[in-house]
């Protein structure tokens, strides 16, 4: 059976594809440049570590406070005791593993223990840049270093 030539044209790489794919590459490169240079990635003593569970903030303390490890549990009753390195997500404990352990040392963050099908966030390793989150999608946990100092005016 003979292919209709008009239809067959749309299966082959043509000149318009070059334009559209170049547009796509341009979009991606501008996004890359924005995330590399447009976002503050520096970490200093005034930075904070913020941990959220499903959008709710459960931990917000200076990065200089070292935790090795900080255990996040779904245990009922404990409202969270950051002094003793235990956090509880409290109310709806929809969580894969029994615990998620976060290590905060030397101005870096790392998820050391978690339970999820692909172990993406523990494979991500040590993160030393600000505004670069570690995301444990099945556990709804997000760990990120936030540098508030850049948002404030310098003369205050």
């Amino acid at each position, binding site marked *: 059976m003979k292919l209709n030539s008009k239809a067959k044209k749309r299966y082959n790489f043509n000149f318009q594809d070059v334009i559209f794919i170049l547009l*796509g590459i341009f979009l991606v490169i501008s996004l890359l440049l924005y995330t590399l240079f447009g976002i503050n990635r520096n970490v200093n003593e005034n930075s904070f570590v913020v941990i959220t569970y499903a959008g709710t903030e459960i931990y917000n303390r200076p990065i200089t406070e070292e935790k090795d490890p900080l255990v996040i549990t779904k245990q009922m009753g404990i409202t969270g005791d950051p002094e003793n390195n235990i956090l509880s997500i409290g109310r709806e404990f929809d969580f894969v593993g029994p615990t998620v352990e976060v290590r905060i040392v030397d101005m870096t963050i790392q998820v050391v223990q978690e339970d999820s099908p692909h172990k993406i966030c523990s494979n991500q390793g040590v993160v030393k840049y600000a505004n670069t989150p570690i*995301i444990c999608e099945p556990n709804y946990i997000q760990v990120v270093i936030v540098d508030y100092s850049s948002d404030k005016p310098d003369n205050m």
Partner: protein
Amino acid sequence: MNIERIVRISLFVALSTVIHFFESMIVIPIPIPGFKLGLANIVGVFVLFYYGYKDYVGVTFFRVLLVAILFSGFGTGFLLSFAGNLFAVLITTLIYFLTRSSIFSASVLGAIFHSIGQVLMYMLISQSVYIITYLPYLAILSMLSGFLLALICRMVLIRMPEYKDTSKIRRKR
């Protein structure tokens, strides 16, 4: 909607759901949250360029629904997948109608906008914008996988007789 279309859509929904299931078994050792090959999109691109946009939209959204019902449930995963597929369907349909470009740009731009949609939905859900740091890497990898999927899809499409011809055969019988 005639019976032929209903049968066709359900056939391709079943096919893409099975592909999606097998894809979830493949573990890609890339520590970027949310990256997947998107193999099920081969079916989408094939249906769009072989049967037209109505079937494509039907197959994509019924697949998202069926995957949610069978495997993941209507949680965060469903919302992410829905937003990603919505963006991908919009851009792919626009390219299909407004331009004369081929399956390659439809697949590649669909993949890029799929990750953009997912990241935007994740921002809405988690109420934080930090995930944007991963968007460029996610988009680069999706572009590559989109291009490869278009290559595979082309291999299938050039071996198929034209759709109108197949319906003629059936009538002649």
